[in-house]
């Protein structure tokens, strides 16, 4: 009995996300792009007979990532040099160094786009040039088998006459213009709260007063609620890509803040057991924590201040930019279809 043949072959490349990942599979007559969200998969199919072109565009992502990882590794090494929590800083420096090494070994990054008769789509799983070229080595023979190869006569003809035009009804808008960003008040609120929390954390480094931790806890709690609402709103209202990404980063930042805050609070409770049964007393002890006491506390306060200020400022800038772009974009008249002539002649 013949073994059952698998319908798809997995192609190199996998792009992981916060929840889920993108992969690419080669079928008998089409490419299958899968966006897996763990418990749900979304599919996009590109038939070999429809593929017109595949683009690889080199990006600077590897350089930027290497720069950030290298900078962080150097920063942690510098902290270790000054004997500031050497075990922790050496560990962090080696993690960053390993990340940098892996990033360099995986090679330069790219964006891969596939073009068919009616659309041009990004293939997120192919984001390293080496991986993309490996995948294309498998894809191209399949497309050639279906379509044949490009001849010099085709190129000459295209040079003289130009490429064939699309049907009139599709020609009205060949390149889709970016949709104007929608208006949402929740994003500015979120970024303002992050900015205030960053300012409160920065102020708490210099002046130990109970007001600053109170403001910090209040703004962080409000920001947690706001970030959840903002993430839901992003699906309802068309929001600029940059703001969407920053909202997700804010979620990660807030989660880290909560974990860090909880850790510090537990530290305070265990070191001051006599205040453990009085919330306000514990909070007062918590607010009197001095960053000068321990480098780890300084790092926590610094992270909170720097993260809040950075996310808040960049977020508000993006919101303002999106607002001004929205004002500049005027509503376009919808493309009108020509009436089909009656053929009963």
């Amino acid at each position, binding site marked *: 009995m013949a073994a059952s043949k698998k319908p*798809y072959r997995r192609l190199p490349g996998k792009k992981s996300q916060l929840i889920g990942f993108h992969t690419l599979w080669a079928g008998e007559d089409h490419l299958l792009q899968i966006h897996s969200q763990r*418990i749900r998969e979304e599919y996009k199919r590109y038939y070999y007979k429809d593929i017109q072109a595949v683009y690889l565009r080199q990006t600077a992502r590897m350089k930027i990532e290497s720069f950030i990882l290298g900078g962080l590794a150097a920063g942690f090494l510098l902290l270790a040099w000054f004997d500031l929590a050497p075990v922790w800083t050496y560990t962090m420096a080696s993690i960053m160094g390993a990340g940098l090494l892996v990033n360099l070994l995986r090679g330069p990054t790219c964006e891969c786009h596939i073009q068919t*008769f009616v659309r041009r789509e990004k293939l997120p799983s192919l984001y390293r040039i080496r991986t993309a070229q490996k995948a294309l080595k498998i894809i191209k023979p399949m497309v050639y088998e279906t379509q044949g190869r490009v001849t010099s006569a085709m190129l000459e003809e295209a040079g003289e006459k130009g490429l064939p035009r699309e049907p009139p009804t599709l020609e009205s808008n060949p390149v889709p213009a970016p949709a104007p960003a929608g208006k949402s008040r929740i994003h500015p609120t979120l970024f303002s709260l992050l900015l205030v929390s960053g300012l409160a954390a920065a102020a708490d480094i210099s002046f130990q007063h109970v007001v600053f931790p109170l403001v910090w806890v209040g703004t962080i709690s409000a920001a947690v609620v706001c970030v959840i609402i903002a993430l839901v709103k992003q699906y309802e209202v068309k929001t600029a890509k940059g703001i969407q990404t920053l909202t997700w980063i804010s979620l990660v930042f807030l989660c880290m803040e909560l974990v860090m805050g909880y850790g510090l609070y537990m530290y305070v409770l265990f070191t001051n057991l006599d205040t453990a049964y009085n919330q306000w007393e514990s909070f007062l002890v918590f607010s009197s924590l001095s960053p000068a006491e321990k480098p780890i506390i300084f790092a926590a306060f610094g992270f909170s201040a720097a993260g809040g200020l950075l996310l808040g400022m960049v977020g508000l800038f993006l919101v303002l930019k999106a607002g001004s772009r929205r004002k500049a974009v005027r509503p376009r008249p919808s493309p009108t279809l020509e009436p089909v002539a009656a053929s009963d002649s």
Partner: protein
Amino acid sequence: MELRCPQCHTSLEPKSRHRPGFHPCPTCGDSLDVDIFPTLFQSLGEGTPGEVILADREAGCFYHPGKKAIIPCSACGRFLCDLCDLDLDGRHLCPACLETGKTRGKFKNLEQGRTLFDTLALILALAPMLFVWPTLVTPFIVLFITVRYWRSPTSVVGRTRWRFVLASLIAGLQLTGWAVVFMHFQGLMG
């Protein structure tokens, strides 16, 4: 579609792009490597509206009685004109059958997404173990999902049902564990 830079949307000349390696875009300067295929030089073509019936003995389309039928629908047998004939994997279908088949998930190649109940069962079996107490309830849900969706299709790329098996085993172990704990406490109290 035209050949365009994915970054700046500048129109690119196919002849200058049909060579291996990365070359800069003339406008934005980004390095591009473009592979071109013969379909780029073909037109999508316009759809045919269907021939008009000229003689009385010619069969008409079910949806457009004035148009000449060219083929029956492979699913329902209705006569179809050129306009209504939809070719899918060698089958000729009418728009209604295509829509019905798509809704019921009959055409694998038209499916845009699937829920993976095997992964859901496995996550429901594993994740609550972090918090211990939810495992009083979740094994029942896991077993229900396993039984209810055992025959439902998994990923289109084809995979076995080991996740269902593993999830059921874990759920069984959790139930056994709780049973042992309850019996122990009952013994202490009795």
